[in-house]
């Protein structure tokens, strides 16, 4: 149990359907790990369990040595597990800057009375929060659009803003759910650089769901392959590509 994210024998069923069974994953700090599998394999379900949207039926999740399974989503996020979404889910009516500030704010405690009192007393906290949000936007080339409504950004910018927003939580582990979906080849090249840069500059550990095999094989050191909720292969991109079970899951039998 030395990894920054330890997922041990996690399972969940919806009705009679086992969506994920006995999933295991151990990510060392700084890892860039891929999670692939055919549609419906349970990848996003796994993300939902890690981030507290679903509670696993069995198994444990530990972040930096602390058990987080069963926690409410906002506590898990504040503890350092951040994510993006397969279908972009920005706060569309808020500005680009506010989208990032929302997540920055989360690091400080909010109580009903405390929030009211602090809201009424200017503490300088607001200014610091805005400044750090602006810095983050600068890193993502979004500074010039800070005051636009997030929903009005072009698609590629929205994808990058989602990553910026997740980073505002100052996470130790970042879960990216198909960040390249809908991107053109040029944007994918930029995204690849961005993911690597973010990992290095923020000292992050990244778990990446992606259907673009070129991207996954290129940047991930290790890959876990899911099919029907079961891990069918784990290894380096090279190993995984040659694994007969993986080939069968993707292409069917008879090859």
């Amino acid at each position: 149990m030395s990894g920054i994210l330890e997922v041990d024998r996690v399972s969940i069923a919806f009705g009679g359907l086992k969506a994920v069974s006995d999933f295991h994953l151990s990510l060392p700090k700084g890892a860039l790990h891929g999670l692939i599998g055919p549609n419906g394999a349970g990848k996003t379900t796994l993300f939902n369990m890690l981030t507290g949207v679903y509670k696993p039926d069995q198994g444990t999740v530990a972040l930096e040595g602390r058990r987080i399974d069963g926690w409410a989503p906002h506590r898990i996020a504040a503890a350092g597990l951040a994510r993006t979404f397969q279908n972009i889910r920005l706060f569309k009516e808020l500005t680009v800057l506010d989208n990032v500030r929302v997540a920055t704010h989360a690091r400080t405690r909010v109580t009903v009375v405390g929030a009211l009192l602090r809201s009424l007393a200017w503490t300088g906290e607001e200014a610091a929060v805005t400044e750090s949000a602006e810095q983050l936007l600068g890193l993502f080339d979004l500074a010039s659009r800070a005051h636009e409504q997030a929903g009005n950004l072009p698609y590629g910018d929205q994808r990058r803003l989602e990553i910026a927003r997740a980073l505002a939580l100052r996470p130790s582990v970042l879960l990216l759910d198909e960040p390249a979906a809908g991107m053109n080849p040029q944007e994918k090249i930029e995204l690849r650089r961005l993911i690597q840069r973010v990992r290095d500059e923020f000292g992050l550990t990244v778990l990446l769901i992606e259907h673009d095999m070129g991207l996954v094989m290129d940047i991930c050191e290790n890959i876990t392959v899911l099919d029907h909720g079961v891990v069918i292969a784990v290894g380096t991109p090279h190993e995984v590509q040659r694994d007969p079970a993986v080939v069968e899951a993707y292409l069917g039998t008879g090859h």
Partner: protein
Amino acid sequence: MADPAITKLLQTTMDAMAVGSLYALIALGYTMVYGILRFINFAHSDIFMLGAWVSFVLARALGWAAPGAVAPVWAGPFAIVFVMVTCGALGFTIERLAYRPLRSAPRINVLITAIGVSLLLENVGQLPAAFGTQPQRMPTLLPDVALAEVGGVILRSVDLTVIGVAVVLMLVLEWVIYNTKLGLAMRAVSTDTRVAALMGIPVDRVISTTFVIGSSLAAAAGFLAAMKYPGLNQPAHSTWVLLGLKAFVAAVIGGIGNLRGAVAGGLLIGVVELFGAAYLSPHLRDVYVFSLLIAVLLFRPAGLLGQATVEKV
């Protein structure tokens, strides 16, 4: 000698602003809760009623309601803070006990629960240990002096205080919503509750805070209404229901979920109701308000400042 027509116009405008700003204060609570939870909190108008009655009970307990008693200068400020705190706490409790357990239930269940809470408050309010079933007369807790005469209208300090306090509270709310982290969290939760939680926002606390703020604004409106109209009907009287209903109409007319819409809707209703009563017929004042509602729903169903949502298929 002032022209009577101008006097009437000025007097009606003054009253419309006072009544309208009270509607606006109540409408803000309806619209804030709707914006976040997408349900109509029918118990909200009862918080308004409680704001008025709690201030009466407070005044009676402190001896300000006795015949010939004169309330000290600090009575008004103290009473408004007192009712805002107690009703804020009540709003917190109602949300915690009645609505939070139903967070993942179908919305109709929450709606019916809200009606239940409303009936509960009205009926408990009638108990002898609470407010009883007799109407009462609210003592004057605010300085009531004639400040000036403009065009034949006497500007009374009570009227100006009602308008002034309502405006200040609305400005504070506006500032909280658009300039503080709490306000940002509220806006994020109202846009996408689940994602807000995943971005580290304690959604339940934000919802609790919303109820506290909405309830204390309604309580303030209750206190101010009791200052302007000191005759307090018994807690379950239909006048309370009707006032709350009109505030709800104000929220809908402005665009439910939209704060500035609620304020605009409240003022508009105040104008329509009082000008209709003054210039057409005083017996039909409710008719004007609900006719306006029907017109808005027919021609601009999302409300004056609301954005029409397009259902994607």
